[in-house]
């Protein structure tokens, strides 16, 4: 049985014991159940409309990890060998290589932009720039490979036409892709004024397969 289910059953058993012993009136129990149900229904709505992170009921009952104790990672992990893609990315980001990087989904990151390379430009969205005018979409991850992977995911989803809005402006195609989960937040002057609302969309600008820019976005 999943750990979260065990925790929930233990919580219910505790409440039943309290009712039986008379320490918790039945109407209070009913009230608690109604409140929990209302919270369950309202939580996703509040997260979406207010742009704030609210814990699920699992979080409130102290259920943090879904990983069984027996499956927990050993403290000393073997050193992971870097993938060729990571090497290529590092050459561009750290060593200033101007080579074109092709992502697993087929997006081409070429030299260009004020950052000198589109991959560097993408990584400028790994950190907030609170004094940048307007919105500045910031990815939750700061790891180049993870950010490239999220953009790839958005690109692949855009190709399927699922939960995507497509705009064309000359040679450019602009996808607004709903990834249906938090991928970052809105920073910049505007985002910081609104307490950095969560973003679950990616706005991706391409010319054919050539990557121009991508960032977390709230339509």
């Amino acid at each position: 049985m999943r750990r979260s289910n065990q925790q929930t059953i233990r919580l219910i058993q505790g409440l039943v014991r309290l009712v039986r012993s008379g320490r918790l009136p039945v109407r209070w129990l009913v009230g608690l159940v109604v409140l929990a149900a209302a919270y369950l229904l309202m939580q996703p709505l509040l997260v979406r409309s207010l742009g704030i992170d609210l814990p699920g009921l699992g979080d409130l009952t102290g259920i943090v990890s879904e990983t069984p104790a027996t499956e927990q990672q050993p403290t000393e992990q073997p050193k992971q060998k870097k993938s060729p893609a990571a090497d290529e990315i590092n050459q561009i980001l750290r060593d200033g290589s101007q080579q074109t990087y092709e992502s697993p989904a087929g997006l081409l990151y070429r030299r260009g932009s004020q950052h000198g390379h589109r991959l560097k430009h993408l990584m400028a969205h790994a950190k907030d720039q609170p004094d940048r005018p307007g919105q500045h979409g910031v990815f939750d991850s700061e790891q180049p490979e993870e950010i490239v992977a999220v953009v790839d995911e958005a690109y692949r989803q855009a190709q399927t036409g699922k939960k995507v809005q497509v705009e064309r402006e000359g040679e450019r195609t602009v996808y607004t892709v709903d990834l249906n989960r938090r991928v970052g937040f809105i920073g910049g002057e505007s985002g910081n004024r609104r307490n950095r609302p969560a973003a679950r969309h990616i706005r991706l600008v391409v010319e054919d397969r050539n990557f121009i820019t991508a960032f977390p976005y709230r339509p």
Partner: protein
Amino acid sequence: MSAKQTMYYVGFCRVCKTGPLGLRRCGQCENVVLLCDECDATWSNADLAAPPQYAKDGELPCPKCKASLVESPSHWATAEQLQEIDWLQEAINGGLLELKQGIAFTPDAADESSPP
């Protein structure tokens, strides 16, 4: 990290919907264009309904003299330099554009966020 650059801008890019439209001055011919700080779309004047120009093969050439708008000595125009731009002053006086001052997208942000 380089110092933050001040940039005058006149609104936001309709293509990427996020980049401020900064006033960029060509280092060679001193022409001033509207350049999206995010996606590099460029407009030669206040007609933002016109199709923008885009970077080609990684280069962002000045529409007038073809020198690079990214490389030095091209730069974000200063307030004094903007006073000399007729089309801009006309658009501001006519209420078509509103001039604001902000901080440009920091090119070094990528270096800060890349792993050691």
